[in-house]
């Protein structure tokens, strides 16, 4: 199976919400593909339209315009019955888990199969098997109220996997969990992705989630697709302000320094450049001193990459010297727009 096969294809998808005195463009002319077998991240600020977008992937939300193609079928053309059948192959998990509190863990996991009229015995066997996958086989007869948040999300994942879906849609699935549990759930998702070759779509406003497990990412801003690409690519050279804003939040911290009438640049290192003592060399080679305002490193797709915000010297010539030096070294950088400009 080719990695390049699109399981979802969005063509100029738009969603308008009519409110009393205005029209909200929640999703605005968005087109992209989600590939079979990948973990695809959709990230954006609160209100950007992420939830609306993901809900259009299983037509919980009707597109006002454009089309959503799933596995070759235009969702907009399906009858209600066909839509229900196709939804059985696209499971969804939620921030609030949405388990039935009055049913046992086992009954929750059996539910999608019950709806699909799978024979009872098979329901139970498969449910227990899925609980094993998420590491909760001993909780089969527990009630959701007796479980922790992380355990509840595991049950929700088991429930989602029950019908052996082609895709798993996750809307802020880890947003109500603490960092450690988030890690565990993400590791579980990655594991499932690899073992079952299951396409996973992850909606989040947390960059760290995308960093950890996504192959590709789409950045949504004001309902529009701002940027899309390999996570590593988008991370190391974000092309839009929206992307920089999400990816490089150090810029926001820059306001805290409130330094500066001086020019600042952001230097982004990929794995190779990070091992080079760039700043030390810079100072040694040019004799110009620069001030490091902040620095940050993370691992994206197994490659360490770092970023640094450097304040240039006041003197124009010295500043240009620094810029030229960095340019020469082939290191990725760009000048940060001044405060008051939209960062």
């Amino acid at each position, binding site marked *: 199976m080719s990695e390049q096969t699109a399981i979802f294809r969005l063509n100029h998808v738009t969603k308008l919400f009519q409110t009393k005195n205005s029209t909200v463009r929640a999703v605005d002319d968005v087109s992209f593909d989600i590939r079979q077998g990948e973990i695809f991240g959709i990230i954006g600020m609160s209100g950007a339209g992420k939830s609306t977008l993901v809900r259009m992937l*299983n037509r*919980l939300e009707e597109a006002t315009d454009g089309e959503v193609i799933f596995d070759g079928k235009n969702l907009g053309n399906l009858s209600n019955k066909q*839509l*229900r*059948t*196709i*939804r*059985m192959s*696209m*499971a*969804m998990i*939620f921030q*609030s888990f*949405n388990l*039935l*509190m*009055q*049913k046992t863990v086992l009954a929750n996991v059996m*539910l*999608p199969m*019950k*709806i*699909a009229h799978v024979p009872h015995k098979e329901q139970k066997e498969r449910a227990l098997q899925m609980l094993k996958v998420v590491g909760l086989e001993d909780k089969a007869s527990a*009630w*959701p*109220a007796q479980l922790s948040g992380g355990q509840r999300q595991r049950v929700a994942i088991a429930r989602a996997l029950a*019908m052996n879906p082609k895709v798993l*849609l996750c809307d802020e699935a880890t947003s109500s969990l603490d960092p450690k549990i988030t890690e565990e759930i993400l590791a579980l998702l990655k594991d499932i992705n690899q073992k079952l070759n299951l396409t996973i779509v992850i909606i989040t406003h947390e960059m760290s989630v995308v960093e950890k497990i996504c192959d590709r990412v789409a950045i949504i801003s004001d309902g529009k697709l701002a940027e899309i690409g390999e996570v590593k690519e988008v991370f190391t050279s974000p092309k839009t302000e929206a992307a920089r804003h999400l990816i490089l939040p150090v810029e926001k911290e820059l306001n805290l320094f409130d330094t500066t009438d001086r020019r600042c640049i952001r230097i982004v290192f990929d794995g190779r450049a990070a091992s080079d003592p760039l700043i030390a060399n810079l100072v040694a080679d040019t004799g110009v001193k620069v001030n490091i305002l902040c620095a940050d490193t993370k691992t994206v797709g197994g490659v360490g990459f770092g970023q640094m915000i450097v304040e240039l010297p006041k003197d124009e010539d010295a500043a240009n010297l620094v810029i030229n030096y960095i340019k020469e070294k082939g290191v990725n950088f760009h000048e940060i727009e001044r405060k008051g400009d939209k960062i």
Partner: protein
Amino acid sequence: MTSQLWVLIGNGVLETLQMTVSATILAYLIGLPIGIALVVTAKEHILQNRIVNLVLGVLMNIFRSIPFLILLVVLIPFTRFVTGSSIGTTATIVPLTVGAIPIVARMVESSLKEVPSGIVEAAQSMGASPISIIFRFIIPEAMPSLLLGATINLATVLGYSAMAGCIGGGGLGAIALNYGYYRYQQDILFITVAILIIIVQVFQESGTLLANKKRHS
């Protein structure tokens, strides 16, 4: 008191229970679907339908705002048509049921509305049909609340049944009125009232117990 009187009271208890329980069950047979319809036809819900929602809502409000005593009188022709008589235990079940339907419907509506919308969304995302969503998701999730509601309805219908005793219904209400009020037999009045209180207590306690036993969150 003579044993004859005890037999009378015993029969009264049976009649009262019979009226109350049958009327409540009948009221649920009609009120439960109406309550469900009120929920699922509401705005943004799975079977949104403004007209149905409005008509049912207005109908329920009209019936609920008629005082029960007046409903008893107004319904006499209808009761006679249905049961062939307008007095006695069986006849009383008719107005009791009619009076309880809107209360049941609204109680069911409010219980079902407590179910978080996320549950419905999860159900939809699994490909559940509206019928499945109602019976496999919403109602099971609302069950403890529905049971508590049923308990309250039972006690309300019991109160109504005593009222019905005043205009020819049977049961403890009629006994209290005939013996205790018209014949000044204070002891009978006292005993019947005490029994009514006990029955309400038993209903309420067992209902609460059952609801709590069913509730897992």
